[in-house]
C-alpha cells in the first residue's frame, strides 16, 4: 500500500534519512520509532511531501507520489501532528470540515460527516461542534485533531506524536480510543512516536530507526523476543517480558473459576475445588459479590459468615483488560489469582499468576 524505495534525504552535509526502503500493507499500523534525530519525522513528512526526498521514490497504492501535485496528494492523506494545529479562529466543526471543504463537498454531507467523526472520537456533537479551540482541553483538542485528519475518509493516515502533548492518563485513554477506532476503520497508518510502550500497544509493525537507517522492521512480538542486534535489544529495554504483557489480552488465558452462591452449604464450598485457596461468591445471576478463604470453612456455618465482600470494580478485572493490567492488580493487592468479569460484573472465570508466567516464558532470553 505504501512503499518507500531507497529514499534518502540530505540537509546540506547531513544525511537525515539514508537509503530507506520498507513497505506498509493496507490496514496496518506502522510505527516509526528511534532515538532523537534518527530521521523518523523526516521520513513521515516525505510521504506527504512536506519535505521532498533528495533521492528515491515513494509509492502510495502503486502511484509515485512525486507525479501528483503536493496539495492534491495531501488532501487524500490524513495528517495529525503533536501540537494539533487547530485553526483558532474556526469552530471545531469548521476545523474538522477543512479538507472536505477543500474537496468541495456539499454542506449537508460535511455536516453529517462532522457529527459522525465527533461521535467516533467520543465527543458529543451538540456540545462540541460549535466550540472554539481555546475552549478545549488538551485531550479533546488531540481527539479533534484526529477527527480532522479522518474527515475526508483518507485511506492513509500520517501521525506525528499525535498523543504527545497530554498527561499520561489522558494519553492512555487516547491510545485506547485510537485502537478502537483503528479496529473499526482499518486505515493504513504511519505513526511516529518516541514512546515504546505506545508503539508496542498500537503497532502492527514497528520500524526502529537509527541515524537515518532502518535497523529492524518487525511485529512487536518479534521485536521483543528476537531483537536483531544489541541496539534494538537495549532500545527495547530490559523489561521486555512486561512489555509483551501489554499486548496480550487476558481472555485466552482465563480458566474456569470456582464459585458458589450465597446459600451454598459448607460442604458444597468444600467440594467445589479441593486444591483452591479461594472461592468466589456470586449471586443467582452469577454477579460477583466477594470471595472466601477455604481455610475459614471449618469455623463457619454459612457463606455469609466468612464472605469477604467486594465489588467487581474492586476485586476483579474486566474481560477487556490486558495481562499487564491483571498482573499489576495481582501484585498491587498481593493475590495469586484474580477473577475476571464482564461489563455487568458477571463472573467469567479467573486468572492466576502461574498463567501469566507461562504466557511470557522465553521472552527474556538474551540475543
Amino acid at each position, binding site marked *: 500500500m505504501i512503499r518507500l524505495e531507497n529514499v534518502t534525504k540530505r540537509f546540506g552535509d547531513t544525511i537525515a534519512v539514508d537509503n530507506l526502503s520498507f513497505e506498509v500493507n493496507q490496514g496496518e499500523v506502522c510505527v516509526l520509532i528511534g532515538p532523537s534525530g534518527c530521521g523518523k519525522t523526516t521520513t513521515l513528512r516525505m510521504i*506527504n511531501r*512536506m519535505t521532498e526526498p533528495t533521492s528515491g521514490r515513494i509509492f502510495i497504492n502503486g502511484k509515485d507520489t512525486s507525479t501528483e501535485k*503536493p*496539495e*492534491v*496528494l*495531501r*488532501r*487524500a*492523506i490524513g*495528517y495529525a*501532528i503533536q*501540537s*494539533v*494545529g*487547530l*485553526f*483558532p*479562529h*474556526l*469552530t471545531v466543526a469548521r476545523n474538522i470540515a*477543512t*479538507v472536505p471543504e*477543500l474537496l468541495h463537498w456539499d454542506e449537508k454531507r460535511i455536516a453529517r460527516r462532522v457529527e459522525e467523526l465527533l461521535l467516533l472520537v467520543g465527543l458529543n456533537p451538540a456540545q462540541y461542534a460549535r466550540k*472554539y*479551540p*481555546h*475552549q478545549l482541553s488538551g485531550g479533546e483538542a488531540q481527539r479533534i*485533531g484526529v477527527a*480532522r485528519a479522518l474527515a475526508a475518509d483518507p485511506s492513509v493516515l*500520517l501521525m506525528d506524536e499525535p498523543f504527545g502533548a497530554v498527561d499520561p492518563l489522558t494519553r492512555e485513554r487516547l491510545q485506547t480510543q485510537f485502537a478502537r477506532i483503528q479496529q473499526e476503520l482499518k486505515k493504513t497508518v504511519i505513526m511516529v512516536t518516541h514512546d515504546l510502550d505506545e508503539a508496542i500497544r498500537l503497532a502492527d509493525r514497528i520500524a526502529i530507526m537509527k541515524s537515518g537507517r532502518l535497523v529492524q522492521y518487525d511485529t512487536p512480538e518479534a521485536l521483543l523476543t528476537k531483537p536483531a542486534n544489541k541496539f534494538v535489544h537495549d532500545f527495547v529495554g530490559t523489561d521486555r517480558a512486561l512489555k509483551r504483557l501489554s499486548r496480550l489480552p487476558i481472555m485466552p488465558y482465563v480458566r474456569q473459576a470456582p464459585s458458589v452462591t450465597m446459600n451454598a452449604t459448607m460442604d458444597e464450598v468444600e467440594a467445589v475445588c479441593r486444591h483452591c485457596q479461594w472461592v468466589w461468591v456470586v449471586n443467582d445471576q452469577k454477579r460477583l459479590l466477594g470471595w472466601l478463604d477455604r481455610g475459614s470453612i471449618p469455623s463457619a456455618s454459612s457463606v455469609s459468615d466468612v464472605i469477604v465482600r467486594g465489588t467487581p470494580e474492586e476485586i476483579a478485572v474486566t474481560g477487556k483488560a490486558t495481562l499487564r493490567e491483571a498482573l499489576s492488580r495481582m501484585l498491587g493487592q498481593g493475590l495469586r489469582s484474580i477473577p475476571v468479569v464482564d461489563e455487568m460484573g458477571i463472573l467469567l472465570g479467573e486468572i492466576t499468576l502461574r498463567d501469566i508466567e507461562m504466557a511470557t516464558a522465553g521472552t527474556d532470553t538474551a540475543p
Partner: protein
Amino acid sequence: MIFLRAKPDSVAITGAVIGLWSLLPGWLTLKPSRIATGTSLSLWDSFTLPGALSIIFLWLVCFSFSFRLKNERLALLTGICANLIAIASFLMAGLSAERLLAGEEATARVSLGAGIWLTLIATYIVIFAARQKLGQSPLWKNLVSWSGLAVIIFLFASGWLNELSIVREFLDREARFMQELVHHVMLVGVSVSIGGVLGIMLGIWATRSGAAEKPVFFFSNITQTIPSLALFGLLIAPLSILSFTFPTLRELGIRGVGDTPAIIALIIYSLLPVVRNTYVGLKQVPPAVIDAGRGMGMSRGQIFRRVEMPLAAPIVLEGVRTATVQSVGLAAVAALIGAGGLGWFIFQGLGQAASDLILLGALPIIILAIIADIIMRTIVRLATPKGVAGETP
C-alpha cells in the same frame, strides 16, 4: 457615613480632585479684541455667584461620591453629576458671555479659560471611572457616557454658545471651515488608504523574504523620525522637477506644492505602523497551524487567505488605526504647503495672534482623532475572529 466603609475609586478621586482644583484659575477671559490678551475672570466673576456656587456644589458632591463608587447606584449618580457639571459649564459660559459682552465694544471677545478646560478634563476622567463600574447595565453606561455631550452639541446647534469667542470665529468663516474639514478628512482618507495597502504589501514581503526584512524596516523607521514639516518641504523640489518634466502629471494635478506632497508625506508616515503590525501579525500565527494547514493540502494562497489573514487581521488593523490617528494630527502641517485642511486655521490664528482661531483648528483635529480612533476600534473588533477574541480578556 459615606466615608466610613470607604473603598475609593482612585480614577474618580483623581478626576474629582482636578475638578476641585479647576475652581481656582480663571474660567472666562474677557478681551477687548480677538488679538488682545484680555483679563482672566475667576469662577464667581465669570458665572456670578449662584452659577459659581452650583459648580462648586456639584464638584463637592462628585468628590464625596467617588469614595464609594463600588456601588452601582452611586456610580450612576456620580456619572450623572459629572455630566451635569459639563452641561452647566457650557450653559453658563454661553449666558455669561452674552452678559459680559453687553457693555463692551463690538470687537470684544469672551474666551474659555484654564478653569473651564480643567473642569472638562476632570469630568471626562470621572465619567470614565463611573463607566467602568456600570459595565453590567448598558443603558446607564450609555447615558453616563453620552448625555452630557449630546446636550452640549444641542446647545451649540441652537446657538446658545454663539457669544463665545471660538464659536464667533467659527461663525465668521463657517463655509471655509466646512471646506477645510472635508479636505482634512480627504487628505487623511486617501493617504491612509494608499499607505495601508502599501504598508501591508511591504509587511507581507518582509515576512516572506528574509532579505527584504532589514531594508523594509530600516526605511520605515528612518522616515518616521523625519520631522513632518521637513519631509513636506523635501518633497516639494523633486515633485516640482517631475511635474515640469512631465506636463501630463501637471494636468493630472500632481505638482510640487499642494495636495500631492502632503499626501505622499502622509503615506510615508503611515508606513511604519502598518508594516510593523503586518509583520508581527503574520509572525504570531502559530507555525503548527500553518504546518497543519499545509499538511491537509491547502495551497500557499489558501493558507494565506483562510488562515494567516483572518488571524493577522486584528493586529494589522490596529496598525492602520495607529496610522489613521497619527495622520489626523500630521495633516495639520499640510496647510503650510498649500494643502489646506484644518491646520489652515491654526496658522492663520498664529499669524494673527488670535488664540481662538488657533483653537478652531486644533480642537476639531483632536475631536476628529478621537472619532477616527473610535471608528477604527470598532473595525478592529469586527475583524477579530470569534475564536481569537475569546482568548484576550
